[in-house]
Each structure stands twice: as C-alpha cells, then as structure tokens.
C-alpha cells in the first residue's frame, strides 16, 4: 500500500485541529474538590467502594508535590480544568446512533472506515465518556470482553475488582493519583484462556473542549495462553490554552500469554500528556509496548514491565518526535523481579526546530533475579542545531548473574545523505522526511500496516516547512 503523498500538504489544524460545538449532557465545573469527585462517582452510579477509592486517591493527589525531576509542568493550572464532561446520554453500539456532531468528528478522523477495514473491535472516547463501542460477534462468542471501563465496573464487577489498581496503586505517583480520583472511560479487556484475538482491538481518544482533562483508565487481563493486540490513537483540537491528558493503563499478562499495546499519540501541541502505563508479565508471558509519541506539548511516559516469573519477556519500542515548543520525555522501565527473564528496549527520538526529546529509562534487577538479560538501544536524530536530545539511563542491579547492555547514539541528518537523495529528484524536505522515516523504520515496521502508513504520513506532516 503506497503512502498517499497528496495528503502530505495538509496540516494538523485542518486534519485534527478542528473542534465542534457539541452539546454536553452534563456540564461539569472547572477545578477539583471532594465534591467534584463525589459528583462524578454519583453520576456514574458507582458502588461505594469506588467512591471511597476515588476520594482516597484525591487525598494522595493533593498531598503529593509536583514532580520536578522531568519535564517542566509549571504551566498546568489544575483549577482551570474540566475534570468531567459527558457528551452523550447513551453509548451507541451502532454508528448511526452516535450523536451527529460527534459522528462527524470521528468520520473526519476516519474511525468508522478504519473499523470496517481491519479492526476486530472499536471504542471511541469523546471527552470523558466512551460514545461508541463495538466488538465482532465471533470474539464476543468466544468470551472476550472488550468494553469501556465504566461498563466493566457495572457488568463485570467481580473480575474488575480483582485486578483494579493492583498494578498501579492510587498512590503510585501524583498523576496516577489524579487519574484514580477522576477517571472516566478507557478500555477494559479480558481475554479468556487460550483465546487469540488475531486482529487488533482499537480505541480512539478525542479531546474536544478547551481546558479539558481526559483521564481514561484502561485495564487489560490476558488469561493464560491468550493473545491480544490493542491499539490506541489520540488527537485534540488546537486551542490557545492547555488541556491535560492523564491516563492510567494496567495490564496483567498471565502464564504463556502475550499482549501487545500500541499507541499512536498525536495530541495537539497544547496538551500535557502525563501517562502511567505498567504491565506485569508472569511465567513465559510476553508483554510488548509499542509507543509512538508525536504530539502534545509535554509528554512524560515510561511504559513499565514487571517481569514477575521466570521466562517472562518484556519489550518496549518507542518513537518520540519533538518539534518547536515540544518536550517528549519518554522512555521505558523494566523490572526484573524473577530470574530467567529478558527485556529489550529500543528508543528512537527525533528533534527539530528547537524541540526537545529525552530518553529516561530504568532497568532494575532484583537480588534473587539471576540469569537475566536486558538490552537498551537509544538512538537520537537531530534535524537541526537548535534541537536537543538527552539520555537518562538508570540501572539498579542487585543480582550477580546478569547480562545488560546499553547503547546510545546521537546523529544529525547528514549533508551527504541529503545531497544523495536530492540528486535523485527529492526536494530537501522530502529527503529529510525519508531519512527520518528510515530512522524509525525498525519500529514502524512493527505497527499494523494501516498504522505504519499513517505514521509515515504524520512524520511527513511534522517535517513540513522544516527545511529552509
């Protein structure tokens, strides 16, 4: 499938940056208080244990200081954010039932078309709530649960409660605490033992209103021997003031199961994207994060894998692209709790026009975890002299028999490469885009084809006007 280069000249504002005048079913107040939290829980008709969980999390959030070790977060005004907006009265299971304005938004983003073509199930979240949801009948028949997290709490409370906040406790960090207090929407997936979901399940997250906070919560449980690939995409309109996206994703991969979680994050450049993602992989299980960050003003995200039992494997492949005014502070965390576990981190970052990327990684090996191997490869590509890339690799190794490697490179787009491609008729911009796409190819080739095409196209958009 060829990339449609005719679309290269579109920019973010035209393609994703529009917003629509949606009518909100319940207009929330700005700012955060126990009353707001209680109100969210009440409107959702939650059991009291969840209300209590939320209120406790709010205390943790308020008690914790802002983290200062990473990106600059001083621009976040917690009092000016809408913590909950409900755009529709009822969730639709057929596309026709989605309210017209929201339908138009997702139509413009190509969601229903994507679903028809290649997805096993789709969830579309607009502001705080999931507005559309579908799953293929054959998967439903096999017992796969794929629903929004609110529905899961209502309809599958037993499974839900067993795993909820077990991987990421409410007090894990300030933004996980915030999410725990005001969470809404997100995906819940339960794959029964031995069931392989062969084509991806997808969720699409959209922020529409200025100063919105989106706090979805995703929980995935892979029973022994199962397989699932979950893909999420994110966009938002371009406003003058900032929005906040602070998700929590918890994944449990049981014996011999495999889970792949792919993100294509393309928030507009005024979204603070502060996400906590963590998975536990048990005996002979495989967990893979494929994490692509193109948008946002600030991203802080370090998908983590806890390798709990022998034979567990973890892999994180990440791409970060930072343009003017953007700081992508991304990376990965691997915790070898058990012996005979392996982890692999590949991070590729691109900075242009003064953008800043940081790789922040942590590999920890517990004392009893011998015969562990871990490799980290970080490559940074700088498009110009104004841009910046930093690497912060941390290692805590308490075991003795471990094989750990770390390699990092920083390179600039070379004059010889540019000239070579230009001498074959590519413009300077096309040549740079090709070099950048080649740079991230080892990760993009891991994406489902439709997303790989989209990713190459997004890079072309980002590179637009970058060559003078």
């Amino acid at each position, binding site marked *: 499938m060829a990339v449609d280069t005719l679309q290269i000249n579109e920019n973010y504002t035209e393609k994703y940056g529009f917003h629509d005048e949606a009518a909100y079913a319940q207009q929330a107040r700005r700012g955060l208080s126990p009353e707001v939290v209680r109100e969210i829980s009440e409107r959702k008709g939650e059991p009291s244990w969840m209300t209590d969980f939320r209120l406790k999390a709010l205390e943790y959030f308020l008690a914790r200081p802002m983290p200062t070790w990473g990106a600059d977060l001083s621009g976040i005004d917690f009092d000016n954010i809408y913590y909950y907006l409900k755009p529709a009265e009822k969730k639709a299971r057929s596309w026709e039932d989605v309210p017209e304005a929201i339908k138009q938004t997702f139509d413009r983003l190509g969601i229903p078309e994507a679903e028809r073509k290649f997805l096993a199930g789709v969830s579309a979240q607009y502001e705080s709530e999931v507005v559309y949801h579908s799953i293929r009948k054959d998967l439903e028949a096999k017992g796969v649960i794929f629903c929004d997290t609110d529905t899961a709490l209502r309809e599958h409370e037993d499974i839900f409660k067993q795993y909820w906040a077990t991987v990421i406790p409410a007090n894990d960090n300030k933004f996980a605490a915030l999410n725990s207090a005001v969470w809404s929407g997100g995906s819940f997936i339960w794959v029964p033992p031995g069931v392989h979901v062969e084509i991806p399940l997808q969720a699409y997250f959209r922020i529409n209103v200025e100063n919105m906070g989106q706090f979805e919560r995703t929980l995935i449980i892979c029973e022994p021997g199962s397989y699932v690939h979950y893909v999420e995409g994110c966009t938002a309109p371009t406003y003058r003031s900032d929005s906040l996206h602070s998700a929590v994703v918890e994944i449990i991969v049981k014996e011999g199961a495999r889970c792949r979680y792919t993100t294509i994050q393309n928030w507009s450049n005024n979204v603070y994207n502060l996400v906590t993602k963590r998975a536990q992989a048990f005996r002979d299980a495989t967990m893979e994060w494929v994490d692509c960050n193109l948008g946002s003003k600030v991203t802080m995200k370090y998908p983590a894998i806890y390798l709990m039992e022998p034979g567990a494997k973890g892999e994180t492949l990440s791409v970060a692209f930072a343009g003017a005014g953007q700081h992508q502070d991304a990376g990965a965390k691997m915790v070898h709790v058990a012996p005979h576990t392996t982890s692999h981190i590949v991070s590729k970052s691109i900075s242009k026009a003064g953008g800043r990327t940081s790789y922040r990684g942590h590999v920890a090996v517990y004392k009893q975890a011998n015969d562990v191997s871990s490799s980290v490869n970080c490559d940074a590509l700088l498009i110009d002299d104004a841009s910046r890339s930093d690497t912060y690799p941390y290692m805590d190794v308490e075991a003795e028999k471990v094989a750990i490697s770390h390699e990092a490179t920083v390179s600039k787009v070379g004059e010889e490469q540019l000239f070579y491609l230009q*001498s074959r008729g590519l413009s300077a911009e096309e040549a740079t885009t090709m070099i950048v*796409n080649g740079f991230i*190819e080892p990760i993009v080739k891991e994406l489902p084809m439709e997303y790989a095409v989209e990713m190459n196209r997004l890079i072309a958009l980002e590179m637009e006007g970058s060559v003078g």
Partner: protein
Amino acid sequence: MLDTKTATGEATLIVDDLHVSVAGKEILQGVDLEIPKGEVHALLGPNGSGKSTLAYTLAGHPKYEVTQGRAIWKGQNLLELSPDERAKLGIFLAFQYPTAIPGVTVANFLRLAVKNVLGDVPAVEFRRQMRSVMSDLKMDDTFATRYLNEGFSGGEKKRAEILQLAMLKPQLAILDETDSGLDIDAMRVVADGINKLKNPEMGVMIITHYNRFLNYIRPDRVHILHEGRIVRSGGQELAEELERLGYDKLLKEVQADGR
C-alpha cells in the same frame, strides 16, 4: 535563467570557464567542455586533478563553491539550480561512494525518485521495470527490499547506482569512477548494464582513473583533466596513448606542446 546565446533548450552540456573552490582552495581553474546530446565522453586524469569535483559541481553538492563560469544545459545555467531541480532536468550522477540511507528500501526510494523525475507510474508497471533492470544487472529480487546502500558490498553499491540510472532515464549520466573497486567480472556486468542503457537521447560522462573501463564502454571523445583544466581532448586513441605512456609522460608531452 535563459541565456540568449545558448538558449537552445538542447540536451547538450556546455561547461564554460568553470572555477570551483572547496574550503577556500580552487580545484577547478577554468574548465571548458562540451558534451553534445547523446555522446559518450570520458574524463581521465590523475588523482587530485578535479574529476570528482567537476562531477559533484554539476550535480550541485553544496560543499563545492562555484566562483566563476557556467554550465549550460537545456538553456539554463545548471549551477543556479538545486540538486533536485537538476535531477528533474535529466542530470544523473552515479556516485563513487553512495551513502547509506538506513531504513529506506531500494524500492520505496526509487518509487519516489521516479515519480519526482519522470512522473507517476502505476505500481505494477514500476515493479515490472525495476525487476527487469535488476535481472539485467544480475541482482536478486530481494535486493529491492534491502535498505539503500546499507551493508552493500562495493559491487552492490555500483550496481544499485546503475539500477537508479536505468530507472530515472537521464539525458546526461555522469559516472564518477563507477569502475573503481570492482573486480573484472563485476566491471563487465556494470559496463554491460551501461551499454544496454546507452541511447541517442542520453549523453554520458565517464570519469575514470584507468583506461580499462573504456575497453568496455567506447567513448566518442576523451578528455584529460590536469590541475583543474582540460589539457587535451581527442578520440578513443587518446585513451590508448595514455595507457601506453602513463600520466607523467603524457602530461609532459602536453606541456612540451606549448601550454
């Protein structure tokens, strides 16, 4: 930029009093050269005489600073155009040391290059053409899926250059020491490839250090470049004379001839 005297629009290259400096040092010191449409010219000269400088300057490498002179091609001064504009006007440089572009497959790169230079062709037709040329050059089908010049052997790099030449169908092909580093068999494959591509619409400038390559590709004219100037021009017999005498003797003769 049209020049009234030479604005023929013809695919004839006229290099006129070309002076080029690299890092402040003048390498070309007044090169005059004409390659009429469809002719094959060989440019010979000892190391450091400026052969590659001329090639890169014609292709538009930013490192080479033109301080004087012109290169007229299709009624325009090539030296005022960006490298991609030159490519679109039918200029092609086969690199002596083509650079690697990791992660970009030969096929994807060629597809965009062909689209830019010749216009879009249907994917099926493109692949058919590419396979046919690759088979002529004794390249395996999987070659198209390898990353451009990454981990290529010397011979593979040269063949990849000729593959691009074949696909982009230039009207002036500049071959910068395409024979260097090739064993005799590889040289024959490359030379056969070039001979097959030769046509009345394509001029060729073969830059080489040795005469050997010219036994496979017979030039219409031979030029000898020395210290940044063309010091002698002739037919194929000039290359043979050079082979007999070597550079030192031949250049002494040139000087004795009253330069």
